[in-house]
């Protein structure tokens, strides 16, 4: 395929930023929505171009050494692009029209879209960063931008959620900064203070010679720091609050995109340490945090009544699974983890979209007060049921396949005990999800309580159409380019 030789990676950063600025000038709701969609759609298109460059060249050309767009970035960009577009599309129906129950005034709508696009922009920077300092700055950027989005409604609960989000994640990120600094120190110890570097590509070269003691200390801080952002237990505490109180499209972006960005940062670190001979500390941290997250989340899911909090805890669980996959390591473990990132992003977005719609239609987020939605709103209910089954890891949906690969990696790597714990927790999660959702979905059609839902749903339909193929199809059919990308990412991330 012929691609004009443009600085695509830079354009990718420019697209959402430019759209964010342009939205501020939008004369009407239609314009604001349209510009926002255009920004996200163009980004996705550029991401496809970038990925094709990665597949042919190994890395996409970048304008400076601070950036590095390899296959690993490609995986993250792909899922960010898809989730971003879906979230923007859903925003249009969710709060973009006056008849929507969550409608915003035009100035606030402009601001909302600006921040949404900026959020996307900061996440793109995370994906493209080579310099770990830049990575940190972008991560902190995501926190600041999204904290505003989380608190967008200005009510008591959203202020509380956004404050907790801001403080916890900022504290976490101070840790991450300190860890980054220690890594810098370690690289300086190898080649003299002047040779110290934070560029990931150069760190990878000196990795075998790094001092393990210093790196271990660095990793402790990095794990707590980025782990907070990733939602690994026990630093996940901000996550259910932020997810439940923010506008639903933002919840989707947080859950599906942001958490993956933080994990991505840890994967970069893991790539470095996996080049250090006999260094198993990272593996154990990934396994430990992962298992703790899965087990804790499974218990929380069991007693959770709020739909959006339920989905949030499920994100903790899936981040745990991804972390376990990385911990298992090897080709299978990493492949499974990256594959799972994509699958979870799509499935969770789908669930937030349908779940958000259901909460509007039912007028409450409390699952014990909803029942009979399958009979009352068959389309929403049906999609939600599908999504829940997919999320719970039922075959032949894609999440099953990635979990399957991760479990295989566990047995292959001799971590059968971890597999057993994981399976046990997954069974509890399954029970919890089905317990809550079967109450909400099944049962006779309620006499009152359901509104007809959205007046406009074209954008939502498009978003769902974007996600469904990933949720449904990716389990048994991985398109070749995607497979190549994932395998290349494994090579990059495996050190």
């Amino acid at each position, binding site marked *: 395929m012929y691609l004009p030789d443009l600085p695509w990676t830079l354009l990718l950063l420019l697209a959402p930023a430019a759209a964010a600025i342009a939205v501020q000038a939008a004369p009407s709701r239609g314009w604001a929505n349209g510009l926002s969609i255009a920004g996200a759609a163009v980004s996705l298109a550029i991401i496809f171009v970038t990925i094709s460059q990665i597949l042919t060249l190994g890395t996409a050309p970048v304008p400076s050494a601070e950036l590095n767009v390899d296959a690993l970035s490609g995986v993250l960009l792909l899922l960010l692009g898809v989730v971003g577009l879906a979230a923007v599309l859903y925003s249009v129906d969710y709060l973009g029209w006056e008849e929507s129950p969550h409608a915003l005034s035009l100035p606030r709508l402009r601001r909302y879209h600006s921040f949404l696009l900026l959020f996307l922009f900061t996440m793109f920077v995370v994906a493209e960063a080579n*310099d770990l*300092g*830049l990575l*940190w*700055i972008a991560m*902190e*950027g995501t926190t*600041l931008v999204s*904290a*505003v989005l989380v*608190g967008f409604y*200005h*009510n*008591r*609960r959203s*202020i*509380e*959620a*956004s*404050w*907790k989000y*801001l*403080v916890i994640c*900022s*504290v976490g990120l*101070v*840790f991450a*900064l*300190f860890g980054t*600094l*220690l890594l*810098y*120190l*370690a690289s*300086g*110890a190898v080649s003299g*203070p002047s040779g*110290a570097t*934070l560029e990931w590509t150069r760190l990878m070269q000196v990795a075998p010679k790094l*001092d393990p*003691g*210093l790196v271990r*200390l660095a990793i402790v801080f990095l794990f707590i720091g980025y782990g907070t952002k990733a939602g690994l237990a026990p630093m996940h505490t901000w996550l*259910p*609050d932020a997810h*439940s*109180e923010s506008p639903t499209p933002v919840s989707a972006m947080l859950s599906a995109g942001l958490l993956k960005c933080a994990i991505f940062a840890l994967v970069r670190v893991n790539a470095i340490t996996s080049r250090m001979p006999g260094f198993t500390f990272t593996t154990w941290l990934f396994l430990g945090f992962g298992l703790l997250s899965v087990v804790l989340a499974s218990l*929380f899911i069991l*007693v*959770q009544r709020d739909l959006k*909090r339920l989905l949030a805890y499920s994100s903790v669980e899936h981040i745990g699974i991804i972390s376990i996959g990385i911990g298992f390591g090897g080709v299978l473990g990493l492949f499974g983890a990256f594959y799972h990132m994509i699958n979870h992003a799509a499935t969770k977005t789908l669930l937030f979209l349908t779940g958000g719609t259901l909460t509007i239609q039912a007028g409450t987020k409390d699952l014990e007060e909803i029942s009979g939605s399958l009979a009352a709103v068959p389309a929403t209910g049906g999609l939600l049921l599908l999504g829940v089954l997919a999320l719970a890891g039922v075959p032949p949906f894609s999440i099953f396949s990635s979990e399957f690969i991760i479990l295989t990696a566990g047995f292959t790597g001799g971590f059968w005990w971890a597999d057993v714990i994981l399976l046990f927790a997954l069974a509890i999660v399954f029970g919890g999800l089905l317990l809550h959702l079967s109450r909400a979905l099944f049962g006779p059609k309620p006499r009152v309580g359901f509104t007809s839902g959205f007046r406009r749903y074209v954008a939502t339909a498009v978003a769902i159409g974007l996600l469904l193929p990933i949720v449904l199809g990716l389990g048994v059919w991985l398109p070749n380019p995607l497979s190549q990308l994932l395998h290349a990412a494994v090579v990059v991330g495996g050190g």
Partner: protein
Amino acid sequence: MVAPGLLALELTAAVVLVSAWLSLVHRRLEAIINLYLVQSAAVGLIAILVAYLYSAPDLYLTGLLVLGLNAIIFPWILHRIQREIRVPNEIRMFVSVRLSALAGLGCLLLAVAVVGPLTPLAEIPAAGLLPISVAVVLMGLFMVSTRRKAFTQVVGMLVMENGVFLAGVALTYGLGIFLELGVAANLLILAIVSRIFLYRMNDTFDTVDADVLRSLEG
């Protein structure tokens, strides 16, 4: 290696440590902001000292940045917030003063225990500053997690950042001015966003006591 220079460095670092420790045990908000000012100034001074001692010209700029931002702008913002939303001067905490002082000691001991055995540090002249910086980070964390007021939590976060800066300037001679500017900008935005939220919180809840934020649970 200039021994007096190093001594000056370490003394200044001790000022950072002591100010952090004192802000753990002080019960008045204004004093804590002032302690933060002193601390930031010390960090800025260290940057300039390092720049001079180890001929790292970049760090002059860093030092000025720290002095300007941490020692002037942030304390000014903090004072303004305190005045505008009338944060009571009394610090409210979950642990007693005596326990806080002990905790400070614990932070220091832990930092020494953790950092002490790291071998490659022996080659770095200012290696003695790393335990101090770890201790300051830990003390900042302790402040964030034991102080009831959201306002004091912000101060705690800033103290943590100072700890990180201390290590950054003393051990690695900075991260490169480009990154430092980025980090600084981020901090500035953080301060602004925190201020917005503090105002909003005060409007909505009539207090900046973070412990009242307890409606989201389970």
